[in-house]
């Protein structure tokens, strides 16, 4: 029982790291980016390749996964995404679905369609008994990393000058420009960091979520649920939402395997009906 709770928390934390970049682009920049999972997948594959080909230890690949996905995000933002800001949601959806299709096929072409498995170092695979609860070391590691990230992100967003500028740029890009804030650069950096975090989440999640070319499509809905249910006015909402989703999903699969996914989808629809605008609108 507590083990399930623990696994659920780890799963939820992981979902948060994967989805928080989306919370920023969708919630703060109002951009519907269905291709967010592609960056996570990129991070996952970077870890797999670096571990297989270069024999780098698992933990050392995590920063690499972050950097690679962030770089990819930066390049794509400058080349493509930039032109689609401010267009209708339909255009953004079409654009990002197109990117997903391209990412899925390209990965399939270069990496093969089979599921990739990474070899975790032995010390991460073990479990410890603590007060009668079996705790996986790897999942504790995920919880620690993600917890630190959550706190750091929240601090950056609310306490630093960059966070203030970002919020200003999002609230009213024109006025922010008038005040001498470099909106383009801020958006680019934010997008890159969001993608990088997704990449980190993808790398961390390879063991738990599995990694194959269909990753962006398979988990797109999870990311969207986190963001829609959690709301986007702060990072706390998505964080709580991912925890609830993670626990519900793990527990659902364990206790009522007959309709695990069914429940979360229904909850999402319900939340959207009860608070359709409130979830997406930013408080002014």
């Amino acid at each position, binding site marked *: 029982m507590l083990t399930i709770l623990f696994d659920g928390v780890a799963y939820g934390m992981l979902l948060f790291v994967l989805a928080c970049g989306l919370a920023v682009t969708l919630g703060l920049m109002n951009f*519907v980016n269905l291709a967010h999972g592609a960056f996570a997948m990129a991070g996952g594959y970077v870890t797999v390749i670096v571990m297989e080909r270069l024999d780098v230890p698992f933990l050392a690949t995590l920063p690499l996964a972050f950097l690679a996905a962030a770089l990819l995000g930066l390049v794509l933002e400058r080349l*493509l995404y930039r*032109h*689609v800001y401010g*267009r*209708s*949601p*339909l*255009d953004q*959806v*079409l*654009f990002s*679905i*197109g*990117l*997903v*299709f*391209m*990412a*899925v*096929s*390209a990965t*399939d*072409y270069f990496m093969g369609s089979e599921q990739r498995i990474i070899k975790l170092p032995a010390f991460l695979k073990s479990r410890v008994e603590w007060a009668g609860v079996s705790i996986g070391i790897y999942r504790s590691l995920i919880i620690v990393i993600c917890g630190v990230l959550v706190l750091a992100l929240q601090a950056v967003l609310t306490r630093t000058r960059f966070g203030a500028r970002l919020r200003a740029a999002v609230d009213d890009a024109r006025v922010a420009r008038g005040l001498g804030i470099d909106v383009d650069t801020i958006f680019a950096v934010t997008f890159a960091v969001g993608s990088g975090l997704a990449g980190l989440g993808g790398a961390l999640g390879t063991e738990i979520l599995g990694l194959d070319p269909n990753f962006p*499509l398979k988990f*797109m*809905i999870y990311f*969207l649920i986190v963001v*829609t249910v959690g709301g986007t006015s702060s990072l706390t909402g998505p964080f709580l939402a991912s925890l609830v989703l993670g626990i519900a999903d793990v527990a659902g699969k364990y206790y009522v395997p*007959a*309709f695990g*996914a*069914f429940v979360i*989808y*229904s909850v*999402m*629809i319900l939340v*959207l*009906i009860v608070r*359709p*605008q409130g*979830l*997406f609108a930013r408080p002014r």
Partner: protein
Amino acid sequence: MMAQATPDIAAIEAGLARGFVRRARWRLSEIVFWIAALLVILAWPSRSLLFNEIAILALFALSLDLILGYAGIVSLGHAAFFGTGAYVAGLLTKEGLTDPTLGLAIAAASAGALGFATSFLVLRGADLTRLMVTLGVALVLFEIANQWSALTGGADGLQGVAPGPVLGFFAFDIFGRTASLYSFATLFLMFVLARRIAASPFGLSLCAIRDNPLRAAAIGIPVSRRLIAIYTVAAAFAGVAGALLAQTTQFVSLDVFDFARSADVLLVLIIGGTGYLYGGIFGAVAFKVMQDIFSAITPQHWQFWIGFVLVALVLARRERLARLARKALSRAATRLGTAIRVAEAGLPSQGADT
């Protein structure tokens, strides 16, 4: 004042009526198009299966056009209705109700009922919420079909769907001859119906809602009721498309509810252009031809190029492209019409470019 105003109103009403008649009138180019399409299907029996797929996809895209192009409702889960129609038609056939047309009608009614029920979810919220809700509905249905395997066959699909002959005469053959003509005829009839809806005052009021819901409400259009009505109708259309797929392929699998199906039909409609009904048909042809070409080049990775086309379309500003294409098309059509009329009247063709 009053005496002066009254004839004006009468004149305006007469003008409006004339306008509606003109909107509803079939243009020569349209008639040529449908006859040409029929001839192509008849003349090329070896590609019947492809034509069947195109007709079904076109009908599906047509149903999306009704809500997206006319009422401005974005949807990422239109496959919900397609899939419902497919499963209803498939199950009916398995349960012994093998008449295809009756199956179509019941599938349409079921999908329409589902559309009516879910339309209330779509009414609330802006584009983003609509995208999410429609996507969610399709996912829920996918899960239901997946889990309720006693009824739907689950991941194995619904096998052994064997519909009887169409109208009691035309049995389905393995080459898809009957299937392609049956689907084409259904597409045509549904298109006539959609055209009638689009050209009616009801259709015009939908356009008003799409362009500005607030103003539409201000001039007395019951916005919510109109949206519910068109969403229901579009769902029924999609249900017919799904039923056609189930009957002609004699198999229903889970992928009728798949996200990729909703995304594909959106792509089809965007390629063809929204808001003039033919977009779905042109888009379906273009999509299937593209799929054919790309999968001939790279059998497994044609999706990459489809995605590439999508990204390119958006970056090249699809509305502008659509406007240009439509202008060119209508100019060509006018010229063709004038040329034919001139030829019929036996006049010299100098006047052709008016």
